[in-house]
Protein backbone atom coordinates (compact mmCIF):
# COMPACT_ATOMS: atom_id res chain seq x y z
CA UNK A 1 0.00 0.00 0.00
CA UNK A 2 1.33 3.44 -0.90
CA UNK A 3 2.37 5.65 1.97
CA UNK A 4 3.27 9.32 2.06
CA UNK A 5 6.47 10.31 3.85
CA UNK A 6 8.31 13.64 4.26
CA UNK A 7 11.54 13.40 2.30
CA UNK A 8 14.25 15.46 0.68
CA UNK A 9 15.13 14.77 -2.95
CA UNK A 10 18.26 12.97 -1.81
CA UNK A 11 16.17 10.83 0.57
CA UNK A 12 13.78 10.05 -2.26
CA UNK A 13 16.63 8.98 -4.54
CA UNK A 14 18.11 6.76 -1.84
CA UNK A 15 14.67 5.33 -1.05
CA UNK A 16 14.13 4.36 -4.69
CA UNK A 17 17.56 2.74 -4.90
CA UNK A 18 16.77 0.86 -1.69
CA UNK A 19 13.44 -0.27 -3.11
CA UNK A 20 15.23 -1.64 -6.19
CA UNK A 21 18.08 -3.32 -4.27
CA UNK A 22 20.73 -3.03 -7.00
CA UNK A 23 23.62 -5.51 -7.11
CA UNK A 24 26.45 -2.97 -6.95
CA UNK A 25 26.77 0.68 -5.91
CA UNK A 26 29.97 2.71 -6.29
CA UNK A 27 30.02 5.59 -3.86
CA UNK A 28 31.99 8.81 -3.56
CA UNK A 29 30.79 11.94 -1.75
CA UNK A 30 30.32 15.36 -3.32
CA UNK A 31 28.04 18.24 -2.34
CA UNK A 32 25.06 18.21 -2.78
CA UNK A 33 24.81 14.51 -3.69
CA UNK A 34 26.57 13.22 -0.55
CA UNK A 35 23.43 12.61 1.52
CA UNK A 36 21.85 10.50 -1.19
CA UNK A 37 24.48 7.77 -1.14
CA UNK A 38 25.06 8.34 2.58
CA UNK A 39 21.44 7.41 3.17
CA UNK A 40 21.68 4.48 0.78
CA UNK A 41 24.84 3.20 2.47
CA UNK A 42 22.96 3.11 5.78
CA UNK A 43 20.46 0.75 4.13
CA UNK A 44 23.40 -1.42 3.09
CA UNK A 45 24.84 -1.28 6.61
CA UNK A 46 21.52 -2.19 8.17
CA UNK A 47 21.05 -5.14 5.83
CA UNK A 48 17.89 -3.69 4.28
CA UNK A 49 19.49 -4.32 0.88
CA UNK A 50 22.25 -6.72 -0.07
CA UNK A 51 23.96 -4.38 -2.51
CA UNK A 52 27.74 -4.64 -2.80
CA UNK A 53 28.84 -1.13 -1.80
CA UNK A 54 32.19 -0.07 -3.23
CA UNK A 55 33.83 2.91 -1.53
CA UNK A 56 36.01 4.34 -4.26
CA UNK A 57 38.68 7.04 -4.19
CA UNK A 58 37.25 9.37 -6.84
CA UNK A 59 34.37 9.74 -9.26
CA UNK A 60 36.61 8.51 -12.06
CA UNK A 61 36.94 5.32 -10.05
CA UNK A 62 33.23 5.31 -9.25
CA UNK A 63 32.24 5.23 -12.89
CA UNK A 64 35.06 2.78 -13.65
CA UNK A 65 33.74 0.46 -10.94
CA UNK A 66 30.27 0.83 -12.45
CA UNK A 67 31.64 -0.04 -15.88
CA UNK A 68 33.30 -3.17 -14.52
CA UNK A 69 30.36 -4.28 -12.42
CA UNK A 70 27.83 -3.66 -15.18
CA UNK A 71 30.03 -5.50 -17.68
CA UNK A 72 30.09 -8.44 -15.30
CA UNK A 73 26.29 -8.48 -15.42
CA UNK A 74 25.40 -6.60 -12.24
CA UNK A 75 22.57 -4.07 -11.88
CA UNK A 76 24.72 -1.07 -11.01
CA UNK A 77 24.24 2.43 -9.61
CA UNK A 78 26.21 5.47 -8.55
CA UNK A 79 25.39 9.15 -7.95
CA UNK A 80 27.30 12.39 -8.30
CA UNK A 81 27.27 16.16 -8.85
CA UNK A 82 29.21 18.89 -10.61
CA UNK A 83 33.01 18.34 -10.55
CA UNK A 84 32.40 14.69 -9.78
CA UNK A 85 30.44 14.25 -12.99
CA UNK A 86 33.14 16.03 -14.96
CA UNK A 87 35.84 13.86 -13.42
CA UNK A 88 33.98 10.69 -14.44
CA UNK A 89 33.09 12.05 -17.87
CA UNK A 90 35.70 9.96 -19.67
CA UNK A 91 34.27 6.72 -18.30
CA UNK A 92 30.66 7.90 -18.69
CA UNK A 93 31.14 7.94 -22.46
CA UNK A 94 32.59 4.42 -22.31
CA UNK A 95 29.71 3.10 -20.16
CA UNK A 96 27.20 4.41 -22.67
CA UNK A 97 29.01 3.24 -25.78
CA UNK A 98 29.42 -0.21 -24.22
CA UNK A 99 25.64 -0.16 -23.67
CA UNK A 100 25.69 -0.70 -19.92
CA UNK A 101 22.43 0.47 -18.29
CA UNK A 102 23.91 2.05 -15.15
CA UNK A 103 21.48 4.29 -13.23
CA UNK A 104 22.95 7.50 -11.82
CA UNK A 105 21.14 10.27 -9.94
CA UNK A 106 22.91 13.53 -10.81
CA UNK A 107 22.26 16.22 -8.22
CA UNK A 108 22.73 19.25 -10.44
CA UNK A 109 25.30 21.75 -9.26
CA UNK A 110 27.30 24.53 -10.89
CA UNK A 111 30.82 23.75 -12.07
CA UNK A 112 33.97 25.61 -11.05
CA UNK A 113 35.40 28.24 -11.35
CA UNK A 114 34.56 30.21 -9.26
CA UNK A 115 33.87 27.48 -6.75
CA UNK A 116 30.13 27.24 -6.19
CA UNK A 117 27.87 24.58 -4.70
CA UNK A 118 24.53 26.02 -5.86
CA UNK A 119 22.23 24.54 -8.44
CA UNK A 120 22.52 24.87 -12.15
CA UNK A 121 22.55 22.39 -15.04
CA UNK A 122 26.07 23.05 -16.31
CA UNK A 123 27.26 19.67 -15.07
CA UNK A 124 24.76 17.42 -16.83
CA UNK A 125 24.77 19.64 -19.93
CA UNK A 126 28.52 19.06 -20.14
CA UNK A 127 27.66 15.39 -20.74
CA UNK A 128 24.69 15.85 -23.01
CA UNK A 129 26.50 14.10 -25.87
CA UNK A 130 27.95 11.28 -23.75
CA UNK A 131 25.23 8.83 -24.80
CA UNK A 132 23.36 8.86 -21.49
CA UNK A 133 19.62 9.24 -21.22
CA UNK A 134 18.88 12.40 -19.19
CA UNK A 135 15.61 12.77 -17.30
CA UNK A 136 15.02 15.96 -15.26
CA UNK A 137 12.85 15.97 -12.13
CA UNK A 138 10.60 18.74 -10.85
CA UNK A 139 10.37 17.62 -7.22
CA UNK A 140 11.19 14.83 -4.78
CA UNK A 141 8.21 12.74 -5.86
CA UNK A 142 9.53 12.74 -9.41
CA UNK A 143 12.97 11.77 -8.14
CA UNK A 144 11.57 8.67 -6.46
CA UNK A 145 9.37 7.78 -9.43
CA UNK A 146 12.01 8.51 -12.06
CA UNK A 147 14.76 6.49 -10.39
CA UNK A 148 12.44 3.47 -10.40
CA UNK A 149 11.55 4.03 -14.05
CA UNK A 150 15.19 4.61 -15.02
CA UNK A 151 16.01 0.93 -14.48
CA UNK A 152 13.21 -0.17 -16.77
CA UNK A 153 14.11 2.37 -19.44
CA UNK A 154 17.86 1.81 -19.46
CA UNK A 155 17.63 -1.98 -19.23
CA UNK A 156 15.04 -2.31 -22.00
CA UNK A 157 16.55 -4.59 -24.64
CA UNK A 158 15.96 -2.05 -27.39
CA UNK A 159 17.62 0.71 -25.36
CA UNK A 160 20.50 -0.59 -23.18
CA UNK A 161 21.83 2.82 -22.24
CA UNK A 162 22.79 4.36 -18.90
CA UNK A 163 20.38 6.86 -17.37
CA UNK A 164 21.03 10.08 -15.47
CA UNK A 165 18.20 11.10 -13.18
CA UNK A 166 18.80 14.83 -12.78
CA UNK A 167 17.56 16.65 -9.70
CA UNK A 168 18.29 20.25 -8.79
CA UNK A 169 20.90 20.59 -6.06
CA UNK A 170 19.53 21.93 -2.75
CA UNK A 171 16.26 23.10 -4.34
CA UNK A 172 15.16 19.47 -4.60
CA UNK A 173 17.99 17.53 -2.97
CA UNK A 174 17.76 19.28 0.42
CA UNK A 175 14.13 20.41 0.54
CA UNK A 176 11.63 18.33 2.48
CA UNK A 177 8.26 17.51 0.96
CA UNK A 178 5.71 14.72 0.97
CA UNK A 179 6.64 11.75 -1.21
CA UNK A 180 4.34 8.85 -1.93
CA UNK A 181 6.24 5.56 -1.87
CA UNK A 182 5.11 2.34 -3.49
CA UNK A 183 7.25 0.15 -1.22
CA UNK A 184 10.00 -2.33 -1.95
CA UNK A 185 7.76 -5.19 -2.98
CA UNK A 186 5.86 -3.23 -5.62
CA UNK A 187 9.03 -1.48 -6.75
CA UNK A 188 10.92 -4.74 -7.24
CA UNK A 189 7.98 -6.19 -9.07
CA UNK A 190 7.89 -3.10 -11.30
CA UNK A 191 11.60 -3.13 -12.18
CA UNK A 192 11.75 -6.92 -12.38
CA UNK A 193 14.69 -9.31 -12.25
CA UNK A 194 17.73 -7.99 -14.04
CA UNK A 195 18.62 -9.95 -17.17
CA UNK A 196 21.79 -8.37 -18.56
CA UNK A 197 22.36 -8.46 -22.31
CA UNK A 198 25.80 -9.98 -21.73
CA UNK A 199 28.03 -10.98 -18.81
CA UNK A 200 31.79 -10.68 -18.92
CA UNK A 201 32.07 -13.25 -16.13
CA UNK A 202 30.04 -15.91 -17.92
CA UNK A 203 32.93 -18.24 -18.69
CA UNK A 204 30.67 -20.58 -20.65
CA UNK A 205 30.22 -17.78 -23.21
CA UNK A 206 33.50 -15.87 -23.32
CA UNK A 207 33.25 -12.33 -24.73
CA UNK A 208 35.56 -9.37 -25.23
CA UNK A 209 34.43 -6.03 -23.77
CA UNK A 210 36.14 -2.83 -24.87
CA UNK A 211 38.12 -4.03 -27.91
CA UNK A 212 39.69 -1.85 -30.57
CA UNK A 213 37.39 -0.67 -33.35
CA UNK A 214 39.22 1.41 -35.91
CA UNK A 215 37.94 2.64 -39.25
CA UNK A 216 36.17 -0.68 -39.77
CA UNK A 217 33.49 -0.72 -37.04
CA UNK A 218 33.68 2.40 -34.80
CA UNK A 219 31.23 4.44 -36.90
CA UNK A 220 28.62 1.64 -36.83
CA UNK A 221 28.84 1.48 -33.01
CA UNK A 222 27.96 5.17 -32.84
CA UNK A 223 25.02 4.69 -35.17
CA UNK A 224 23.70 1.95 -32.90
CA UNK A 225 23.59 4.42 -29.99
CA UNK A 226 21.59 6.83 -32.17
CA UNK A 227 19.08 4.04 -32.71
CA UNK A 228 18.99 3.15 -29.00
CA UNK A 229 18.23 6.78 -28.14
CA UNK A 230 15.49 6.81 -30.74
CA UNK A 231 13.99 3.66 -29.20
CA UNK A 232 14.26 5.25 -25.75
CA UNK A 233 11.74 7.91 -26.81
CA UNK A 234 9.09 5.21 -27.11
CA UNK A 235 10.24 3.24 -24.09
CA UNK A 236 10.22 6.28 -21.77
CA UNK A 237 6.57 6.80 -22.70
CA UNK A 238 5.65 3.14 -22.28
CA UNK A 239 7.36 2.82 -18.90
CA UNK A 240 5.88 6.15 -17.73
CA UNK A 241 2.44 4.95 -18.77
CA UNK A 242 2.81 1.64 -16.99
CA UNK A 243 4.03 3.46 -13.89
CA UNK A 244 0.96 5.66 -14.14
CA UNK A 245 -1.33 2.62 -14.11
CA UNK A 246 0.49 1.41 -11.00
CA UNK A 247 0.58 4.68 -9.06
CA UNK A 248 -1.75 7.17 -10.72
CA UNK A 249 1.29 9.28 -11.62
CA UNK A 250 1.79 9.14 -15.37
CA UNK A 251 5.06 10.23 -17.00
CA UNK A 252 6.15 11.04 -20.53
CA UNK A 253 8.83 12.88 -22.47
CA UNK A 254 7.21 16.25 -21.81
CA UNK A 255 4.52 17.55 -19.49
CA UNK A 256 2.29 20.44 -20.57
CA UNK A 257 0.61 22.61 -17.93
CA UNK A 258 -2.35 24.86 -18.85
CA UNK A 259 -0.97 24.90 -22.36
CA UNK A 260 -4.12 24.06 -24.35
CA UNK A 261 -5.32 27.65 -24.68
CA UNK A 262 -2.04 29.41 -23.84
CA UNK A 263 -0.81 32.35 -25.91
CA UNK A 264 2.48 32.55 -24.02
CA UNK A 265 4.52 29.70 -22.54
CA UNK A 266 7.62 28.91 -20.54
CA UNK A 267 9.70 25.89 -21.53
CA UNK A 268 12.07 24.64 -18.84
CA UNK A 269 13.78 21.73 -17.11
CA UNK A 270 13.68 20.64 -13.48
CA UNK A 271 12.39 22.37 -10.38
CA UNK A 272 11.84 25.68 -12.18
CA UNK A 273 8.85 24.08 -13.89
CA UNK A 274 7.10 24.03 -10.52
CA UNK A 275 7.87 27.72 -10.03
CA UNK A 276 6.65 28.43 -13.56
CA UNK A 277 3.33 26.67 -12.90
CA UNK A 278 2.70 28.98 -9.94
CA UNK A 279 3.67 31.96 -12.08
CA UNK A 280 1.34 30.80 -14.87
CA UNK A 281 -1.58 30.58 -12.43
CA UNK A 282 -0.88 34.12 -11.22
CA UNK A 283 -0.41 35.47 -14.76
CA UNK A 284 -3.77 34.01 -15.72
CA UNK A 285 -5.35 35.87 -12.80
CA UNK A 286 -4.02 39.01 -14.47
CA UNK A 287 -5.48 38.08 -17.81
CA UNK A 288 -2.42 36.59 -19.51
CA UNK A 289 -3.12 33.17 -21.01
CA UNK A 290 0.06 31.55 -19.70
CA UNK A 291 1.18 27.91 -19.83
CA UNK A 292 4.23 25.80 -19.07
CA UNK A 293 5.95 23.05 -21.01
CA UNK A 294 8.16 20.87 -18.86
CA UNK A 295 10.82 19.00 -20.78
CA UNK A 296 11.33 15.85 -18.75
CA UNK A 297 13.57 14.01 -21.19
CA UNK A 298 16.45 16.09 -22.52
CA UNK A 299 18.21 13.02 -23.99
CA UNK A 300 16.56 11.67 -26.02
CA UNK A 301 15.30 15.10 -27.06
CA UNK A 302 11.56 15.11 -27.83
CA UNK A 303 11.75 17.84 -30.48
CA UNK A 304 8.63 16.84 -32.43
CA UNK A 305 6.55 16.56 -29.26
CA UNK A 306 7.74 19.99 -28.09
CA UNK A 307 6.98 21.55 -31.47
CA UNK A 308 3.50 20.02 -31.49
CA UNK A 309 2.81 21.17 -27.92
CA UNK A 310 3.82 24.76 -28.77
CA UNK A 311 2.20 24.91 -32.22
CA UNK A 312 -0.61 27.26 -31.20
CA UNK A 313 1.46 29.40 -28.81
CA UNK A 314 2.29 32.97 -29.86
CA UNK A 315 5.49 33.44 -27.88
CA UNK A 316 7.53 31.12 -25.71
CA UNK A 317 10.44 31.65 -23.34
CA UNK A 318 12.96 28.84 -23.21
CA UNK A 319 14.72 28.86 -19.87
CA UNK A 320 18.26 27.57 -19.55
CA UNK A 321 19.97 27.01 -16.22
CA UNK A 322 23.27 26.64 -18.08
CA UNK A 323 25.14 28.61 -20.67
CA UNK A 324 26.92 28.01 -23.92
CA UNK A 325 29.84 30.40 -24.31
CA UNK A 326 30.24 31.76 -27.79
CA UNK A 327 26.68 30.87 -28.78
CA UNK A 328 23.96 33.16 -27.46
CA UNK A 329 21.42 31.42 -25.23
CA UNK A 330 21.58 27.96 -23.72
CA UNK A 331 21.35 24.40 -25.00
CA UNK A 332 17.63 23.88 -24.35
CA UNK A 333 16.78 27.04 -26.29
CA UNK A 334 18.77 26.04 -29.34
CA UNK A 335 17.41 22.52 -29.40
CA UNK A 336 13.82 23.74 -29.03
CA UNK A 337 14.40 26.30 -31.78
CA UNK A 338 15.73 23.66 -34.12
CA UNK A 339 12.31 21.95 -34.05
CA UNK A 340 9.78 24.74 -33.58
CA UNK A 341 8.53 26.25 -36.82
CA UNK A 342 6.01 28.83 -37.88
CA UNK A 343 5.15 32.21 -36.46
CA UNK A 344 6.00 31.51 -32.82
CA UNK A 345 8.41 33.95 -31.21
CA UNK A 346 11.04 32.18 -29.16
CA UNK A 347 13.03 34.04 -26.54
CA UNK A 348 16.05 32.64 -24.70
CA UNK A 349 16.39 33.31 -20.98
CA UNK A 350 19.48 32.19 -19.11
CA UNK A 351 18.84 32.18 -15.38
CA UNK A 352 19.84 30.85 -11.99
CA UNK A 353 23.50 30.11 -12.63
CA UNK A 354 25.39 29.11 -9.50
CA UNK A 355 22.17 28.68 -7.54
CA UNK A 356 20.87 32.23 -8.02
CA UNK A 357 17.23 32.20 -6.96
CA UNK A 358 14.39 32.14 -9.46
CA UNK A 359 11.02 33.24 -8.05
CA UNK A 360 7.40 33.11 -9.21
CA UNK A 361 7.69 36.91 -9.49
CA UNK A 362 10.63 36.58 -11.91
CA UNK A 363 8.63 34.23 -14.09
CA UNK A 364 5.48 36.36 -13.93
CA UNK A 365 7.76 39.03 -15.35
CA UNK A 366 8.75 36.66 -18.15
CA UNK A 367 5.09 35.98 -18.97
CA UNK A 368 4.42 39.75 -18.99
CA UNK A 369 7.42 40.29 -21.29
CA UNK A 370 6.15 37.59 -23.64
CA UNK A 371 2.68 39.11 -23.70
CA UNK A 372 4.22 42.49 -24.56
CA UNK A 373 6.33 40.84 -27.26
CA UNK A 374 3.16 39.44 -28.80
CA UNK A 375 1.61 42.88 -29.08
CA UNK A 376 4.74 44.57 -30.41
CA UNK A 377 5.55 44.42 -34.10
CA UNK A 378 9.29 44.81 -33.68
CA UNK A 379 11.28 41.89 -32.35
CA UNK A 380 13.51 43.00 -29.54
CA UNK A 381 16.42 40.97 -28.24
CA UNK A 382 15.84 37.25 -28.32
CA UNK A 383 18.60 36.56 -25.79
CA UNK A 384 17.94 37.64 -22.23
CA UNK A 385 19.05 36.96 -18.67
CA UNK A 386 16.97 36.76 -15.49
CA UNK A 387 18.38 38.23 -12.29
CA UNK A 388 21.73 39.30 -13.74
CA UNK A 389 23.29 42.63 -12.67
CA UNK A 390 24.65 44.80 -15.47
Amino acid at each position, binding site marked *: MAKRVPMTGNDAGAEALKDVNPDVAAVFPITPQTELMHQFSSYVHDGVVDTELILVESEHSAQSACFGAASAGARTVTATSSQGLLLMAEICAITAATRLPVVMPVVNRAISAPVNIGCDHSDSMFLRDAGWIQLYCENSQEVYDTVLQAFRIGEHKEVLLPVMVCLDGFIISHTMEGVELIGSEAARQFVGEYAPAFRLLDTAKPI*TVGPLHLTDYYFECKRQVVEAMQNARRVIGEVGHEYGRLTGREYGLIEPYRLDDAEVAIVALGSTCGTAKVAADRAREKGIRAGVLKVRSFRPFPGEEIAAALRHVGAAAVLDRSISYGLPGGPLFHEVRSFVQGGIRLVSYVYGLGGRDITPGDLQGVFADLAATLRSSESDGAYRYIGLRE
Partner: protein
Amino acid sequence: MSDLLGWKNMPIGGIIFESGSSRRYVTGGWRTYKPVHALERCIHCLRCWILCPDSAVLVEDGRVVGFDYDHCKGCGICARECPPKCHAIEMQLDR
Protein backbone atom coordinates in the same frame (compact mmCIF):
# COMPACT_ATOMS: atom_id res chain seq x y z
CA MET B 1 31.25 -3.78 -51.47
CA SER B 2 32.88 -4.82 -48.22
CA ASP B 3 31.92 -7.95 -46.31
CA LEU B 4 31.98 -6.05 -43.01
CA LEU B 5 28.78 -6.09 -40.99
CA GLY B 6 26.44 -3.08 -40.95
CA TRP B 7 25.19 -1.39 -37.78
CA LYS B 8 21.93 -3.32 -37.88
CA ASN B 9 23.63 -6.72 -37.93
CA MET B 10 26.66 -6.34 -35.70
CA PRO B 11 26.71 -6.94 -31.93
CA ILE B 12 26.07 -3.87 -29.76
CA GLY B 13 28.53 -1.99 -27.60
CA GLY B 14 31.60 -3.08 -29.51
CA ILE B 15 31.33 -6.43 -27.77
CA ILE B 16 33.00 -9.39 -29.47
CA PHE B 17 30.99 -12.52 -28.74
CA GLU B 18 33.41 -14.89 -30.44
CA SER B 19 36.46 -16.06 -28.50
CA GLY B 20 39.89 -16.14 -30.12
CA SER B 21 38.81 -13.89 -32.99
CA SER B 22 42.05 -11.88 -32.79
CA ARG B 23 43.71 -14.82 -34.56
CA ARG B 24 41.98 -13.56 -37.69
CA TYR B 25 43.05 -9.96 -37.08
CA VAL B 26 46.41 -9.79 -38.82
CA THR B 27 48.63 -7.14 -37.22
CA GLY B 28 51.96 -8.07 -38.82
CA GLY B 29 51.60 -5.10 -41.14
CA TRP B 30 52.24 -2.74 -38.22
CA ARG B 31 55.85 -3.97 -38.09
CA THR B 32 58.93 -1.94 -39.05
CA TYR B 33 61.59 -4.42 -37.84
CA LYS B 34 61.13 -8.15 -37.81
CA PRO B 35 62.81 -10.69 -35.54
CA VAL B 36 64.98 -13.27 -37.29
CA HIS B 37 65.74 -16.49 -35.46
CA ALA B 38 69.16 -18.20 -35.62
CA LEU B 39 68.29 -21.76 -34.72
CA GLU B 40 71.95 -22.85 -34.36
CA ARG B 41 72.57 -20.32 -31.56
CA CYS B 42 69.23 -20.81 -29.73
CA ILE B 43 69.33 -22.64 -26.36
CA HIS B 44 65.50 -22.81 -26.24
CA CYS B 45 65.26 -21.12 -22.85
CA LEU B 46 61.83 -19.83 -24.04
CA ARG B 47 62.27 -16.37 -22.53
CA CYS B 48 61.13 -14.90 -25.86
CA TRP B 49 58.08 -17.17 -25.86
CA ILE B 50 57.16 -16.15 -22.30
CA LEU B 51 57.63 -12.44 -22.89
CA CYS B 52 56.17 -11.98 -26.39
CA PRO B 53 53.08 -9.78 -25.90
CA ASP B 54 51.43 -11.15 -29.03
CA SER B 55 52.14 -14.87 -28.52
CA ALA B 56 53.97 -14.75 -31.84
CA VAL B 57 56.90 -17.01 -30.94
CA LEU B 58 56.26 -20.44 -32.39
CA VAL B 59 57.29 -23.39 -30.22
CA GLU B 60 57.09 -27.09 -31.01
CA ASP B 61 58.03 -29.78 -28.49
CA GLY B 62 59.61 -27.18 -26.22
CA ARG B 63 61.82 -25.77 -28.97
CA VAL B 64 61.58 -22.35 -30.64
CA VAL B 65 60.96 -22.90 -34.34
CA GLY B 66 60.30 -19.34 -35.57
CA PHE B 67 57.82 -16.49 -35.50
CA ASP B 68 54.19 -15.93 -36.44
CA TYR B 69 54.77 -12.99 -38.77
CA ASP B 70 51.02 -12.51 -39.25
CA HIS B 71 50.79 -11.26 -35.67
CA CYS B 72 54.33 -10.16 -34.66
CA LYS B 73 54.27 -6.35 -34.42
CA GLY B 74 58.05 -6.13 -34.33
CA CYS B 75 58.36 -4.74 -30.80
CA GLY B 76 61.79 -6.36 -30.34
CA ILE B 77 61.23 -7.62 -26.80
CA CYS B 78 62.30 -11.13 -27.87
CA ALA B 79 65.62 -9.90 -29.26
CA ARG B 80 66.26 -7.74 -26.22
CA GLU B 81 65.53 -10.55 -23.77
CA CYS B 82 67.38 -13.27 -25.66
CA PRO B 83 70.43 -14.10 -23.46
CA PRO B 84 73.44 -12.10 -24.80
CA LYS B 85 75.65 -15.17 -24.86
CA CYS B 86 73.30 -16.70 -27.42
CA HIS B 87 72.16 -13.67 -29.41
CA ALA B 88 69.83 -15.98 -31.30
CA ILE B 89 67.32 -13.29 -32.33
CA GLU B 90 68.21 -10.30 -34.43
CA MET B 91 65.90 -7.45 -35.48
CA GLN B 92 66.14 -6.65 -39.18
CA LEU B 93 64.42 -3.95 -41.20
CA ASP B 94 61.27 -5.56 -42.63
CA ARG B 95 60.90 -4.46 -46.24
